[in-house]
């Protein structure tokens, strides 16, 4: 006696069959025009950075040497001229075209930012999920240690680390990644704790699922949504920190064309040449603006309860 007389009766939800979760998210994301535009802008920036690296390898960086590094003092502080392509942004204090330096500089901010965020995300995420899942004493000790790290203002910790280890790229990466670990740990912990008590976790346990399987196959995939959003906003934070450290002279060292370093060099010529301060700053701002809008769009798409 099969009971399929209940089967195939009544209307299913109108959103159609087999619409996977990712299609649903993409459909909602598409509706936010700003977010889509900023996503393409970010892809453009990443492509730019990769292209410059490929060019450096291919023609063993002679463009880099004579356009980005070589100084020609006759063009010192030359105003931006819209006619001449390489002079659109004008020249800096050593007569180097700001346009080229900006293009070659994208790789530093973007890639260091991405790597720093991944490092702090993975370490913070691991610590957070262990604290969130096991709770009790483990949770307390970990969270107290995180509170201590959070008690030191972020910028101070970054400056202290980078000055102790010296201003190489790797040390810059570490000095940005480590202070951000507590905030990721806290987000992942909150997300894991909210999921760990849901009934489908108990259902898994009642079928015999082990702790590892529960954490990695059930909890983490569901905990990813808030973490991804935080990661995009985290990259924005990292870029601001890199340029701030370079501005203080502790980050990327001249002559490397990092945007923050360009600003730092520009502050001495602030009276007579406004463009060498404004343009790199705009570069930083638009990148971070794009990341923030993209992050917001992602959060609205991933967060189902926002539907009116």
């Amino acid at each position, binding site marked *: 006696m099969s009971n399929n*007389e*209940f089967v195939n*009766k*009544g*209307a299913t939800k*109108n959103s159609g069959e087999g619409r996977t979760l990712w299609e649903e998210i993409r459909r909602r994301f598409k509706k936010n025009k700003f977010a889509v535009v900023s996503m393409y802008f970010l892809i453009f920036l990443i492509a730019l950075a990769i292209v410059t690296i490929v060019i450096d390898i291919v023609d063993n960086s002679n463009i880099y040497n004579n356009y980005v590094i070589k100084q020609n003092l006759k063009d010192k502080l030359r105003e931006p001229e819209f006619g001449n392509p390489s002079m659109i942004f004008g020249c800096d204090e050593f007569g180097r075209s700001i346009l080229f330096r900006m293009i070659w500089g994208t790789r530093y901010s973007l890639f260091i930012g991405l790597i720093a965020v991944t490092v702090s995300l993975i370490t913070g995420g691991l610590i957070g999920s262990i604290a969130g899942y096991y709770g009790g004493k483990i949770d307390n000790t970990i969270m107290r240690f995180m509170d201590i790290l959070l008690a030191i203002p972020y910028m101070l910790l970054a400056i202290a680390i980078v000055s102790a280890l010296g201003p190489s790229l790797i040390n810059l990466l570490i000095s940005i990644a480590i202070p951000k670990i507590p905030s990721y740990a806290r987000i992942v912990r909150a997300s894991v704790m909210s999921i760990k008590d849901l009934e489908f976790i108990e259902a898994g346990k009642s079928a015999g699922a082990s702790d590892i399987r529960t954490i990695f196959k059930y909890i983490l995939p569901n905990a990813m949504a808030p973490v991804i959003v935080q990661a995009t906003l985290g990259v924005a934070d990292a870029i601001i920190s890199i340029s701030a450290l370079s501005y203080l002279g502790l980050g990327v060292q001249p002559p490397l064309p990092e945007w923050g370093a360009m600003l730092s060099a520009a502050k001495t010529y602030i009276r007579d040449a406004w463009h060498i301060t404004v343009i790199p700053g705009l570069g930083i701002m638009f990148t971070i603006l794009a990341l923030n809008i993209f992050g917001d769009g992602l959060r609205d798409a991933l967060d189902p309860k926002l*539907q*009116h």
Partner: protein
Amino acid sequence: MKDLLLIKDLVIHFETDDGIVEAVNNITLGIKEGQTLGLVGETGAGKTTLAKGIMRLIHKPTGKIKDGEILYKDKDLLKLTEKEMREIRGKHISMIFQDPMTSLNPVMTVGEQIGEVIKAHNRISKKGIEKRTCEMLETVGIPSGRAIEYPHQFSGGMKQRVIIAIALACEPNLLIADEPTTALDVTIQAQVLEMMKSLKTEFNTSMLLITHDLGVVAQNCDFVAIIYAGEIVEYGELRDIFKNPKHPYTIGLFGSIPNLNDNVKRLKPIDGLMPDPMSLPKGCKFNDRCKFAMDICKEKNPEMVLLNNGHKVKCFLMQNNI
């Protein structure tokens, strides 16, 4: 008996970017003076939307009252200005919401929340408000000394009593109760319903009791209206509806509840699912789940048919055999 409140062809839709939610589709309903009308329906049938429509508390941008009139003492509430409507709310018509846990402001003392409604509707001194607040707390069975406490210091049942005190503080003529006891335990539910019944007679208020529990309706209501997919499908006196229900959906509802007296072994449920308010079927909304569905049911939406002593049914089956 005269109608205290008469709703005529009320239509309420929610325009979301996924589509239009047709929550209430031209409902005509009257609430008699001093009587309790039970509004019975399942999730998504539009019960709460109807109640909020009467109070004009439909959430703006998306919610819109498309059409219809709500006549209260020969005044159409939908035509009133916001200021005039505010005088009605709490004074003439007040409302109790479903979940006591979230219906009280957590950062305001219980006494203030009761005093607020008294202050809004009558010009009396601070002393007078305090006295009235304590009176109300005592009538709902809460020691007036607890007026200075905050909602989180009360249990679910006690919170619901505070909410009832707020609603009845200005002795309204009509009390709308949206599933007042669904979130409570059986014994607490019995206490609260018993108290509401005695207060109703004491203040001579008429009541619109919204619920999905037919047992609560049987013990507390004088008239019953069954709502399905935003339409009233059957209306009548309590005994008419319980003793000889006519609409297939109502019959199905009675077949779905386990009955305490006779121990029937197998329930007779209604097949299929509730219709999705964003894509309601053509013709009678119940046709895809109805055992007696005829072709005409799939084409046209039936009219309300008046049977004996006010018993109305919205179904083609009734039309031909009067």
